[in-house]
């Protein structure tokens, strides 16, 4: 907790220091940071490219996030580099605390996302991006013991995002659909592949949100997950979020989380908090 506070203060200082920022895009179009370090919502990587880069700008983000459910806690520290609203390179470090067992799992995620076509707001085509994530467990004793087949793996995804400036209720709406090929168990925290299934499956992830005003959005996310391990059922995840963008330097997300059953502990619900600084 102390570490979290120090991080938060450091982030806040960075965010308010007025460092020359990429600012060529409209507020909130860089999204927040998802648990894997990609620009998006909390659960789902969206087609948006991180930060506010446009034309020839470069930028990036740093963020800290925490998901706390009944029996587990996930802490994520992440950073991204954003190039010309075209390419996003990200890295995330995840610590998953199994509070009842007094142990923790650790994973690193390295991400690449490339905007293939379209635009979030303008023109006929939604913004379409393709991404890969390389995930690596840096503590593998527990995943190995419950039937995981490997300690590192690739995910690949295609995402489409679109904003409607004046949607229902004359509010600005965003919708995102992401298709991911993965065999990660619990986001990869429990390794990759298992005794029940060891091939990548196509999973659907989606998000939709409404901007109450241009700095404040509410929405929901859904993430389908594979169920590869025989020792415990894995369920899909969902969240209901509030995202606040007080400036192009700061984004703050709070959410209600329902992660379903995790490693035999049922109905894991709780909260998600994420603070992002953009530059």
């Amino acid at each position: 907790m102390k570490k979290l506070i120090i991080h938060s203060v450091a982030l806040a200082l960075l965010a308010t220091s007025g460092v020359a920022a990429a600012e060529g895009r409209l507020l909130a179009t860089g999204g927040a940071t998802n648990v894997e370090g990609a620009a998006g919502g909390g659960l789902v990587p969206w087609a948006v490219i991180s930060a506010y880069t446009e034309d020839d700008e470069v930028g990036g983000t740093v963020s800290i996030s925490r998901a706390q459910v009944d029996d587990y806690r996930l802490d994520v520290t992440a950073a991204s580099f954003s190039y010309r609203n075209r390419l996003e390179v990200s890295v995330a470090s995840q610590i998953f605390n199994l509070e009842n067992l007094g142990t923790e799992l650790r994973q690193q995620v390295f991400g690449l996302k490339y905007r293939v076509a379209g635009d979030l707001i303008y023109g006929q085509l939604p913004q379409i991006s393709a991404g890969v994530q390389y995930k690596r467990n840096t503590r593998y004793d527990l995943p190995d013991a419950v039937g995981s087949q490997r300690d590192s793996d690739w995910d690949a995804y295609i995402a489409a995002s679109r904003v409607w400036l004046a949607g229902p209720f004359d509010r600005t709406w965003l919708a995102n659909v992401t298709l991911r090929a993965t065999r990660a168990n619990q986001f990869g925290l429990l390794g990759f592949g298992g005794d029940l299934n060891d091939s990548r499956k196509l999973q659907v992830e989606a998000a939709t949100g409404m901007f109450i005003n241009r700095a404040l959005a509410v929405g929901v996310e859904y993430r389908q997950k594979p169920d590869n391990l025989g020792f415990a059922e894995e369920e899909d995840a969902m969240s209901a979020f509030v995202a606040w963008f007080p400036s192009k330097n700061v984004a703050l997300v709070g959410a209600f989380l329902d992660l379903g059953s995790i490693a035999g502990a049922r109905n894991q619900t709780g909260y998600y908090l994420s603070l992002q600084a953009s530059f």
Partner: protein
Amino acid sequence: MNRLLMNSFLLAALLMLPGQANARSDSLYQDLGGTAGIEQLVEDLLFNVADDRRIRHHFMDIDIGRLHEKLSEQICELAGGPCVYTGDDMVKSHTGMGVTRADFNALVEALQVAMDDNGVSVSAQNRLLALLAPMHHEIVGL
């Protein structure tokens, strides 16, 4: 349960597909404060632009009085008001200016601030922006 959720997402996405704004009444014109409100809004917009180091260079050597008049007409007409836009089409008026995507967004932000300052509701702001956004390809990169 999860299938239900997914279906809801798809339904929500489908519902949002049809046109962005179908207001052809004069309700937006009224919400912007009529001709006087729009002229004030455009005046504030141009002051914001003059303060914006990112885009003010585009407005240095032009007749600001004429721009104010044409832009006010254009917004008035778009909003369903009793005006006729008498200026050049967007492609002609922006050719050679080299407006970038970032410039376009900066202008949107200048307009957003002007609308805030004039007490324009979020709803009316969104409807106006939805009418202006389709001009993006007629303005940027020429």
